[in-house]
């Protein structure tokens, strides 16, 4: 008999706080006058800060909760902070965006908070069924968010594509869980690794289960060949939502991947290694090559995010505490630069997101040097220039890969980073080296947006120049996973 204990509740305190604030925002929404809806955004932000405080309390009470289905360990707490950071930046960037696009509804903030709850559960769960529930909570919230501009054709289309392919992927993941359950009689990750100790236990049946689960996760990670939805969804969804989509669910799926492939399925050895190797190689190459031809900035960033998923997979394939901590470091760097870039695009694109072509940024640096410099930092960090977070993220991942003797994959990743510099620089060149009058220069950036951008830029330089503390934290967070 499992009884509910206070310690159990403390271990999911961040999720509880976020849920309460999410529900509160929904409940209060009809009572707030249309002109005051901004307040709901601030309330959601307060919820994120409250959850961050609650996480401190959780970290004092590490351990398993609810009969071993939730783990409050360094790994999950690291991810919870990452998700809260993302949610906070996205909310700061959305308040004025929604105002300008006449879509200021409280549900937006509630869905961001509830989606974050799902991601936190994905990272914290040690049971496949809880992971599945977390996946669905985050997915269903983000399906709605993708279609939040209801009257917009592109937003509709993005929501439908995301929904159909997302549910399709979920079915695969779930079928994998069913097979694992049939094979081992348990869905608990600890129980799984105990029953699948010997490589001889990896029969065809077990391998099929592994592949099915990987396919389900690969859709969320947008790795090749399961990336087809990514460009369309990222382009069609409202830009702040894209910021959220491109980081949150992806990082959560990486958390699950790490827990599964290096935890529960650790004994699968070569099978999982080659799955990771091949998908990392394909994802990097295709993401970067396709990005070269893009003229739409949101689409370009979508392909860039596919390529980044490839680099992160290199770290997962490398494994070991070095690989895991590199992946964790990279995810924070990726979150800062990607959210920053998308929030900037959201605001430069004007009402109705009309200005999203690279030409729309021509000559931006002459009229708005600060804005252009900020955007340049995001793109240079994505490209991996030294002194930025993107550079050190790549450096640690590649170093871990070399330590694990993945020479071929590392060479491929390095070549890919070189290719990627071309398309990131295209935007920087358009802003700085071409004359032109751009409508984007007239856009005002209110102070919440400036705050979000400043946090991202400072974060990028902090991670890039003084990585000691963040790297120490990511090494600490890698500890709970078996080596």
């Amino acid at each position: 008999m499992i009884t509910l204990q206070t310690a159990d509740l403390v271990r999911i305190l961040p999720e509880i706080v976020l849920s309460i604030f999410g529900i509160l925002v929904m409940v209060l929404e009809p009572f707030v006058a249309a002109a005051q809806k901004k307040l709901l955004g601030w309330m959601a932000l307060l919820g994120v800060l409250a959850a961050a405080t609650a996480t401190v309390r959780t970290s004092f009470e590490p351990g398993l909760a609810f009969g071993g289905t939730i783990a409050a360990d360094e790994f999950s707490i690291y991810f919870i902070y990452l998700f809260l950071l993302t949610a906070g930046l996205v909310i700061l960037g959305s308040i004025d965006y929604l105002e300008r696009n006449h879509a200021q509804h409280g549900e937006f903030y509630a869905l961001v908070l509830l989606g974050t709850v799902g991601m936190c559960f994905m990272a914290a769960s040690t049971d496949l069924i809880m992971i599945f529930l977390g996946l669905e909570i985050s997915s269903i919230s983000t399906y709605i968010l993708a279609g939040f501009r209801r009257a917009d054709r592109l937003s509709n289309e993005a929501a439908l594509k995301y929904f159909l392919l997302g549910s399709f992927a979920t079915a695969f993941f779930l079928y994998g869980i069913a097979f694992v359950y049939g094979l081992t009689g348990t869905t608990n990750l600890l129980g799984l690794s105990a029953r699948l100790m010997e490589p001889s236990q990896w029969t065809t049946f077990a391998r099929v289960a592994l592949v099915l689960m990987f396919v389900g996760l690969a859709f969320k990670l947008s790795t090749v060949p399961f990336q087809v939805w990514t460009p369309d969804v990222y382009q069609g969804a409202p830009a702040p939502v894209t910021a959220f989509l491109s980081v949150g669910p992806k990082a959560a799926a990486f958390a699950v991947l790490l827990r599964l492939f290096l935890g529960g399925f650790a004994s699968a050895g070569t099978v999982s290694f080659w799955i990771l190797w091949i998908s990392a190689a394909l994802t990097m190459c295709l993401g970067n090559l396709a990005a070269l031809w893009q003229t739409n900035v949101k689409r370009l960033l979508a392909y860039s995010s596919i390529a980044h998923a490839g680099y992160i997979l290199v770290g997962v394939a490398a494994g070991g505490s070095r690989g895991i901590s590199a992946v964790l470091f990279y995810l924070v760097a990726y979150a800062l630069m990607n959210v920053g870039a998308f929030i900037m695009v959201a605001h430069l694109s004007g009402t109705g997101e009309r200005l999203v072509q690279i030409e729309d940024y021509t000559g931006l640096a002459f009229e708005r040097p600060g804005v252009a410099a900020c955007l340049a930092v995001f793109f240079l960090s994505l490209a991996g220039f030294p002194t930025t977070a993107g550079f050190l993220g790549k450096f640690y991942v590649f170093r871990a890969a070399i330590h694990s003797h993945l020479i071929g994959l590392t060479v491929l990743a390095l070549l890919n980073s070189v290719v990627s510099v071309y398309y990131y620089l295209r935007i920087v060149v358009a802003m700085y080296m071409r004359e032109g009058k751009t409508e984007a220069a007239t856009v005002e950036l209110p102070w919440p947006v400036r705050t979000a951008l400043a946090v991202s830029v400072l974060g990028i330089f902090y991670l890039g120049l003084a990585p000691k503390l963040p790297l120490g934290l990511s090494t600490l967070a890698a500890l709970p996973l078996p080596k």
Partner: protein
Amino acid sequence: MVPLSHYLALSVILFVLGAAGFILRRNVISVFMCIELMLNAVNVAFMAFSRFLGTLDGQLFVFFVIVVAAAEAAVGLAIIIAVYRNRESLNIEDLDSMKM
């Protein structure tokens, strides 16, 4: 007693039918129904395993899956209605505003 393999064969057939329908069907509602079919294939597998393992966990999971599928259907149909209002079409081929 019907052996486990029969149930699993049924489950695999349902799942493959659903996946094939997802790829081949052109109407959005049909595509969505194919996803539901896949989820039900999962349910059959869970039930069969639960029965033959002699544990109740699998039956419990089926309830989780049903609840999640219902939530997904609510959101999915709402999205489909929003799309239909904007385009007056539910054909997958018409969803091509964002081709390169």
